[in-house]
């Protein structure tokens, strides 16, 4: 192995190659999609709530894109289980980076947080607090 590749530790590569909770939830409570224009990543997340309509019973995702975005979605789908929607709303990018357990270079943070943003926007739409077709990580400076 070469000098660095810190971002691509075993755990990330494992989740990328063998994504957990990959697929759909037939009777999902809500579902939302988002993209990260920088890498062309796209992720759809399905969330199923418990009967209390607060606690997440399970989540699934499907998508396409770079290893960081897809591994983060896989790990995040595991993380979501048992959380309440309020707890989800309080999560921020540091939680995602802690979850990934590696240093994410500044240019790649958007890849890492895509799944979290999609889940949060999906929950807000479900609760009627947001109206949005598709989540997108904020505008990137154009490519040359």
């Amino acid at each position, binding site marked *: 192995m*070469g000098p*660095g*590749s810190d971002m691509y530790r075993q755990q990330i590569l494992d989740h*990328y*190659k063998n994504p957990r909770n990959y697929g759909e939830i037939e009777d999902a409570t809500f579902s939302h999609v988002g993209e990260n224009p920088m*890498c062309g990543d796209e992720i759809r997340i399905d969330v199923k709530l418990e009967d209390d309509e607060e606690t997440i019973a399970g989540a699934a995702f499907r998508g396409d894109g*770079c290893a960081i975005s897809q591994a983060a979605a896989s790990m995040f789908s595991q993380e979501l289980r048992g959380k309440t929607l309020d707890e989800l709303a309080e999560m921020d990018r540091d939680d995602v980076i802690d979850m990934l357990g590696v240093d994410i270079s500044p240019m*790649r943070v958007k*890849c890492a947080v895509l799944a979290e943003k999609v889940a949060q926007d999906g929950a807000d739409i479900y609760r009627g607090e947001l109206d949005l077709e598709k989540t997108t990580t904020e505008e990137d400076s154009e490519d040359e």
Partner: protein
Amino acid sequence: MSTQDIEPLDIERIREDFPILERTVGDDVPLVYLDNGATSQTPEQVVDAIVDYYHGYNANVHRGVHQLSQEASIAYEEAHDRVAEFIGADGREEIVFTKNTTEAMNLVAYAWGLAELGPGDEVVLTEMEHHASLVTWQQVAKRTGATVEYIPIDGDGQLDMDAAGDLVTDDTKMVSAVHVSNTLGTVNPVSELADLAHEHDAYAFIDGAQAVPTRPVDVGDIDADFYAFSGHKMAGPTGIGVLYGKEHILEAMQPYLYGGDMIRKVTFEDSTWNDLPWKFEAGTPLIAQAVGLDAAIDYLEDIGMERVQRHEERLSRYAYERLSEFDDVEIYGPSPDQGRGGLVAFNVGSVHAHDLASIVNDYGVAIRAGDHCTQPLHDTLGVAASARASFYVYNTEAEIDVLVDAIDDARELFA
């Protein structure tokens, strides 16, 4: 002089002119800069010329009788002459300074396109256009009711010139084509395209952003009506680009930006326009950048553009061959034998281009990942993104070896 006689570059000497190449990145690994298609590094000679301007004769141009303004005005005007000579234009009247290639394209699209195009008119582009030209003509066509057609590419990333012959008709008013593709490396037959346009009384706009930095270009030989490029990709500073236009065409065009410097006489009721090229350079222009571009041309001409071209072709061939050693690497564009510019865009197996760029960055290697502003071309290639290594006068085969080793490690990581 036959091509065999062209002496290779003295790269060690050249590298001394670029202090940035001595820096390290990440964990103290030496920088390997292979993103020259996006922007090239700047030699000391160019930085010095800009410093001399600010230390010695910084002043506004065309506005003062004082000595500093005279000196600055002369340097600024002479930079136009220098560019004209460099690309074989007839004189400064044909050289308009803009902020970059993109603005040069927009200048023509606004000043000529909005005025001249209408329903039934056609603009013919290529499938490998950079967004600078593709988006600009697409939007001007929408506003004027004109239609846009695209000359397709074949499996080798070459233009289908038979299709071009059918697409360009008497309804065509503009053929706008990239000279060297920033993604495929294809060197397009631009003088053939210009001839084709002229047979139908259309204009030819050639995007030379990747060509002028890397090979001898003569706009007269091409017979281009418009030609554009950027200083920052040719060892010059950011913030300056060039629009070449044939004098009689620029003469007939209305201004693009209004304001100071571009006028001759102004009353409360009306205004008349200054001579070319100043008619298209409203407001205080990019004076320091023009001085820097002038110095960059000196720098490149000292090396010799034929030698730059040979060097680019050599590195591009070497990179192509080394990358071809991997059977899971897909390289886009023509083979080196078909001729290609000094860049290689590729994908490695199932490794996403951005993951690849991040991994090779750990080895100090700077490459580009994404769509390189050619999204529709990537759609045609059937991929969302690609990685691109692009070379300049200071790059070596040894640096390409570093890239290839890093790619090999990325392949193993993702295997």
